[in-house]
């Protein structure tokens, strides 16, 4: 097991805010409304709030687990389940993070192909982005956290673009409230919960915060900020589109950028898609950083090597995932896995650790 990271590698606890916001707001925010509207219609904001509440509880649990374990998840796994089972669980976790990395990358490439360069090859874009990810992850967690901060501030102007559709939206589209049954809302909340995934990163970056328990409140605030961003996006979409229209639009946010009309610029989705690189880059970097860090903890593989290996694998995956149907299937699988990780595995780990410590305390 590796020693805890030195102070020069650690970052201030407030950075948990930026890490959580950027990791939760990823490529999903471009398209999530059209998935929600099918189940919850104009009441989708209630579903978002429901999912947000659940996420806050999960983050709380995550911190309870980590505060007790005082290290990252691989150490906790080994402590609770022993070397083999614990190691296997950690390995699965790492693979899960890597698969999210691949899917995020693939989805962004798809956005570029759909909205900017229809002819561009998968591997070409994947290779370029992989090179950038390498530049960041090689700098360590401090640099990746810095990217999160800059990316947060760079994307604020993109959020402000929502003002244009808002001015043309109709507030009446929000009514009637509570039109949908609670089961439909819950179903939409389940879909929405996936967009909040990403905070699992905390399981790996926890020891990299100075006075790590203090980062809890910042992580919660970060999650609240993501909720605010999702809520704003959802409300604007509901007010601008009709329900039926929204269900058909696959990328509502990008479509809304189209209507922005500045005196010197039109069709802002081109700029938006390009700038969106700064939104998904922290995601990619964080997932890959966590995966390589986990591998280092498990097998003592140098992060520099595993990083190159993972990037190579990622580019390969993206190059061969050309059929949208395969991507779709993989996405569904990972979504399912994500739900299990978040809503079954984290509570399980929490309870198990609680019992484990109680029993050991008695002994």
């Amino acid at each position, binding site marked *: 097991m590796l020693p805890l990271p030195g102070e020069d590698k650690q970052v201030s606890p407030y950075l948990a805010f930026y890490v959580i916001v950027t990791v939760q707001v990823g490529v999903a925010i471009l398209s999530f409304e059209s998935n929600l509207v099918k189940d919850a219609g104009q009441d989708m904001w209630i579903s978002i709030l429901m999912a947000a509440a659940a996420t806050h509880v999960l983050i709380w649990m995550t911190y309870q687990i980590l505060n007790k374990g005082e290290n990252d998840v691989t150490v906790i796994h080994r402590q609770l389940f022993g070397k083999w089972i614990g190691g296997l669980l950690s390995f699965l976790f790492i693979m899960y993070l890597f698969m999210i990395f691949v899917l995020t990358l693939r989805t962004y490439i798809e956005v570029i192909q759909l909205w900017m360069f229809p002819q561009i090859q998968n591997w070409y874009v994947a290779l370029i982005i992989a090179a950038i990810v390498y530049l960041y992850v090689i700098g360590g967690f401090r640099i990746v956290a810095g990217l999160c901060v800059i990316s947060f501030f760079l994307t604020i102007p993109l959020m402000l673009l929502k003002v244009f559709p808002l001015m043309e939206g109709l507030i009446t589209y929000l009514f009637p409230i509570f039109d949908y049954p609670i089961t439909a809302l819950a179903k939409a909340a389940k879909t929405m919960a996936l967009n909040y995934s990403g905070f699992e990163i905390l399981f790996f970056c926890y020891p990299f915060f100075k006075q790590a328990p203090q980062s809890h409140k910042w992580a919660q605030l970060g999650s609240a900020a993501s909720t605010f961003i999702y809520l704003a996006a959802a409300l604007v979409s509901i007010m601008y589109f009709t329900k039926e229209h929204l269900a058909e639009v696959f990328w509502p946010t990008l479509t809304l950028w189209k209507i922005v009309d500045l005196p010197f*610029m039109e069709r802002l989705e081109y*700029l938006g898609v390009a700038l969106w690189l700064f939104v998904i880059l922290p995601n990619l970097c964080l997932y890959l950083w966590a995966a390589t860090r986990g591998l280092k903890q498990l097998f003592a593989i140098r992060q520099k090597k595993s990083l190159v290996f993972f990037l190579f694998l990622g580019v390969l995956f993206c190059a061969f995932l050309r059929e949208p149907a395969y991507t779709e299937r993989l996405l569904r699988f990972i979504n399912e896995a994500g739900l299990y990780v978040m809503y079954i595995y984290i509570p399980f780990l929490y309870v198990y650790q609680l019992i484990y410590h109680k029993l050991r305390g008695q002994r």
Partner: protein
Amino acid sequence: MKKERFKKGWRSPSKSELAALLEKCSESSDFVTFKFHEQSPFAISYYQTLVDKKVLQTSVLDTLKEKEKEWSTVEEIKEAVPIENMTITSQISDIRDKLMSGHILIYKEEDPSECLLISAANVQARQISVPETEYTVVGPKESFVESIETNVTLVRKRLPTPDFKTKELTVGNVTKTRVMVVYIDGIVSQENVNTVIQRIDDITYDKIVDASFINQMIADNPSSPFPQMVDTERPDRVASDLSEGKVAILVDGSPSALTGPTTLTEFFTAFEDYFTIWEMATVFRLIRLFAIVFSVLSTPLYVAVLTYHYEVVPQDVLTSLFASRAGIPFPPLMEAIILELTIELLREAGARLPIKVGQTIGIVGGIVIGTAAVQAGVTSNILLIIVALAALASFTTPVYQISNAVRLIRFPFLIGAGLLGFFGIAICSAILLAHLLKIKSLGRPYLAPVYPVRLKDLKDAFIRLPFDKQITRPMELRPEQPFKFRPKPKPNTKNDLDIDE
């Protein structure tokens, strides 16, 4: 040889060692050795070109001539000569170094175990003049010169405190350049001072000609186009930086000082910002910042829009854009690169030529070539405007070295835009950002106060708040004394006054 030395005592130079040194020196035609008369036991040696003739004549030779016959040791001479800086040494390396820095050597020919060295250096310094690269309309108009003594004087008279300390080091095994690390004890973080001294000590190079040599050699990331210490010719700026808790480096023979640790935002800070009212200074700073962004991005955006994304241009603008480009045989990327290179050519030619010829070049280049290029249909009017504006904007940076970096990074952006449009520009920005995040200045983050976020330091980064709001020194520097001053409590009554009271 070794045994002989041992017998005589290792401290005193053997006759032969001194003789060897003197013989080596006298191979230069400006080295003089003489005696007053044949019987005199003392010989005098010095470099004519290094010694101040006036000091030599009035203080040394006159005194010697009067009383020479009475003396038998160099100590007696030392007491008689009215000069402050004299040493008696027997160390051969010491003698050599001092001879080379303008000392007069007096020794007994029979017994050279003790040599007297009288300091009489002939300091040839330029007059203190008006700063040229950092000229300000308001404020002090003194700038550093090539003499390190004068430069320290210029700073010290602005900081009349014994806490202002200087530490002298010698670097360069051929040039033996004197370098002074200056700081204010009690404000500066000792860690920063140690870093600077350590790094200067580690320099192994034969010649240190200018402060810019040191700047490159002690940089945290030596291959970065971004300078990692501020290079200034203004003593007032150095004094102000020192009082904030920075460390400054003065180099003999260089009319500029280095201060650090620094941040990227500081390169967009003109010292004049502090001489004007704060709103004005803030506006100017923001204009400068905008100018830099514009300078880097404008031509790449033009290329990206005309190559891939002409949809983003509104209809009316598009018409004139295409009208100006009609008939141009090159793709936008090539058109832009040709023009950018032309501007660089003009700048480089202008920089190499004497001022008056340089102006002619400016006119020839700017007007004749520009107009001719458009009329010949090689470039479009609009691109010409954009490129010229971008070049202009890159010169708004108050610190000269950063403007070079800004112009250099424009080219990768251009190529990125030519290959992948807006997405290419975003990729270049991401790479640039990764680079900036990694740079450190003397071990302190370069992008502060943006990352790590230091809200308090924002008061003097992109904006400049009034002086009464500038209570703390930059946290980024980790000063030992974080407060610049204690604000006086304001009288409460002021708030309660009504209009007519």
